[in-house]
């Protein structure tokens, strides 16, 4: 039943062709551009669905096809694609969100003069992301990993005339590049340690099965941590998360596509792809779990104090990515991927909803909004579904995946269970704050003239809302089908009543408090600010991470740069000048012989001639 899977390599080609056509067409064909871009992602989505049906209908063999990219002597570097259950799932998620965002952008970006460029970048991104998902080895994975990074960079800086967008794009690229350097080193390590220098995931799986012992424990840990460094950069884990909130300078559909649903999840996907390496090293697993847990609570608390709607969602994304990482670190591949899957839908929904709001009110500050619920009904309802899903309220999708992670934490690591619960509480709180401030209350100056967005923008919202509602039922405490499918039957359903009750309780509690403060306004929202101003300020400034980096890394780097520049000019240049001066002095001294007197020259010639004669004739008399 592999008739579609064999053609999986075609999937990335659709958006690639779309990108090439869009680039060749230029800017003038606005409508055609939108059409071509959407068509490319639609075709890719259709193809991915077919492949998913292939996988669902029970083909167990992973499809793999690869070819030599570079062959040097005995070493070969290969490029190839592979379809497993995990990649089939990711294919569908990526192409679906990409298609929805394509449709949505037709409305959102309608008036932008560079809309075809935008569609071209989105198509290029979709191509790279699909290539990344399909890669069968770490090298081709890395290649596409960098490409998605650069697409993200291009799209963050899409409105390039704004200095803030420029700074955000640069920051995103450089911070993720730090992680990428780690991933690169991991690949180099693997290349030299793996038998036959193989880099493909299948071989990695068989080498790191816990028994072979081909690679020592220390090296395994090192490799795992370096890979995780790469994942940290892309997936915004502490302390490399700083770029993700700034990335919100890009157009909102991009925040939904790249910085919520797909690219930032690539780090989680990477860890899942190389999970066998991590499972071989307890230290690495623990590191991931704790960094993930810390990121989750850290970002969730920041989100509480932000006022920019997109920044709240961005910190929420960071926090949820931390959740996924924590699940992976606790040993649950299913938990991580399941949450990735559900999160992709409801977070894309939230971002697109936010885009719809921003489109209507032209501000991003939630304090300037209010009363939008009656004016934008579709947006409000779909946003509510997304917010509830994120807050983990049953039976929405977010509940099931969050519950799975919490129940695993309950069984393995009580500390992280508490952290997870606290995060869930914060999540519910900031989402209810966001919702009530935006949609309830009195209309403000900015929102009084707001109208519901066009169908091009609301239909995607409805589709995503349906998915956010339903996507969770593939894995419930009573039905571990998804985990079984993903792991070939290796994992069983986790069923912990404590976790279920606790997660529902904190979720409801968070929403209730949020409603009290921001909905009913029976508790003053400024009470906390008045009592502990330092805490609010610290949260608003995101724990001063940017300032910290500026002081610890950027400044010293600039200082070193200036010092070395001075060194280059004065020391090295000085030595050069000194040498030059010495030569020129010597030349001036020698030039004194040149006095313009023909007779002196003649004398010199005669002396030289005599020396020659003596040398030639005199040699005969030597022994």
């Amino acid at each position, binding site marked *: 039943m592999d008739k579609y899977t064999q053609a999986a390599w075609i999937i990335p080609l659709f958006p690639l062709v779309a990108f090439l056509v869009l680039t060749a067409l230029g800017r003038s064909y606005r409508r055609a551009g939108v059409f071509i871009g959407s068509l490319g992602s639609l075709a890719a989505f259709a193809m991915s669905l077919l492949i998913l049906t292939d996988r669902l209908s029970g083909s167990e063999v992973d499809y793999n096809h690869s070819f030599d990219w570079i062959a040097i002597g005995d070493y070969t570097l290969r490029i190839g694609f592979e379809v497993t259950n995990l990649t089939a799932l990711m294919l569908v998620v990526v192409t679906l969100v990409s298609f929805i965002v394509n449709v949505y952008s037709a409305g959102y970006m309608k008036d932008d003069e560079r809309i075809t460029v935008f569609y071209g970048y989105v198509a290029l991104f979709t191509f790279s992301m699909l290539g990344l998902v399909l890669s069968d080895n770490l090298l081709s994975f890395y290649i596409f990993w960098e490409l998605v990074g650069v697409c993200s960079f291009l799209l963050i800086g899409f409105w390039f005339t704004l200095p803030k967008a420029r700074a955000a794009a640069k920051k995103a690229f450089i911070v993720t590049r730090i992680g990428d350097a780690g991933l690169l080193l991991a690949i180099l390590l693997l290349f030299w340690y793996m038998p036959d220098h193989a880099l493909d995931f299948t071989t990695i799986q068989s080498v790191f099965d816990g028994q072979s012992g081909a690679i020592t424990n220390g090296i395994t840990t090192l490799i795992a941590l370096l890979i995780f460094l790469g994942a940290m950069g892309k997936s915004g884990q502490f302390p490399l998360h700083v770029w993700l909130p700034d990335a919100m300078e890009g157009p909102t559909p991009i925040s939904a596509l790249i910085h919520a649903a797909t690219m930032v999840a690539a780090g989680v996907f990477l860890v899942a792809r190389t999970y066998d390496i991590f499972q071989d090293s307890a230290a690495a697993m623990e590191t991931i779990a704790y960094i993930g847990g810390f990121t989750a609570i850290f970002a969730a608390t920041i989100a509480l104090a932000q006022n920019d709607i997109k920044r709240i969602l961005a910190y929420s994304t960071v926090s949820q990515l931390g959740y996924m990482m924590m699940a992976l670190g606790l040993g649950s591949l299913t938990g991580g991927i399941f949450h990735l899957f559900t999160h992709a839908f409801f977070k894309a929904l939230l971002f697109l909803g936010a885009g719809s709001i921003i489109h209507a009110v032209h501000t991003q500050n939630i304090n300037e909004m209010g009363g939008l619920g009656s004016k934008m009904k579709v947006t409000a309802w779909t946003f509510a579904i997304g917010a509830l899903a994120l807050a983990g309220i049953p039976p929405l999708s977010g509940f099931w995946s969050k519950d799975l992670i919490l129940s695993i934490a309950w069984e393995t690591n009580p500390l992280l269970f508490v952290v997870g619960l606290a995060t869930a509480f914060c999540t519910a709180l900031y989402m209810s704050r966001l919702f009530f401030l935006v949609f309830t209350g009195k209309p403000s100056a900015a929102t009084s003239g707001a109208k519901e967005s066009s169908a091009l923008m609301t239909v995607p919202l409805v589709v995503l809302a349906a998915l956010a509602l339903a996507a969770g039922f593939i894995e419930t405490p009573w039905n571990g089908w998804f985990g079984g499918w993903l792991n070939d039957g290796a994992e069983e359903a986790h069923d912990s009543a404590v976790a279920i009750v606790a997660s529902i309780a904190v979720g409801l509690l968070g929403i209730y408090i949020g409603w009290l403060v921001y909905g009913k306004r029976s508790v003053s929202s400024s009470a906390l600010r008045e009592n502990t101003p330092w805490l609010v300020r610290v949260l608003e400034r995101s724990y001063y991470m940017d300032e910290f980096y500026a002081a610890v890394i950027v400044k010293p780097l600039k200082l070193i740069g200036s010092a070395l520049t001075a060194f280059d000019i004065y020391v090295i240049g000085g030595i050069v000048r000194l040498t030059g001066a010495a030569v020129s002095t010597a030349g001036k001294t020698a030039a004194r012989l*040149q*006095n*313009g*007197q*023909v*007779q002196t020259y*003649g*004398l010199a010639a*005669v002396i030289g001639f005599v020396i020659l004669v003596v040398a030639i004739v005199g040699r005969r008399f030597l022994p």
Partner: protein
Amino acid sequence: MLPSYLTMAAILFCIGLYGALVKRNAVVVLLSLELMLNAVNLNLIAFSKYGVAPSLTGQIFSLFTITVAAAEAAIGVAILIALFRLRGTVNVDEFNKMRR
């Protein structure tokens, strides 16, 4: 016989060389050059008469040399006169304008 001719030529040449390098008066320098040329001529003739393979070629060459020397002297004196008109002196020490 050859050595005495050669010695004679060598002495003439050395006198000429000395004069060319030491004398200040440009006319004397020119005369010294002639002296050296004639020393060479003497050598040529001596070899053509008493050399290992005597031949008339040497004497013919000395005729050439004399012609060339005449031309050289003419040009040299012409330059000298031009210089004298320009600078008012024939002292070679003062002819160092080529230095710059």
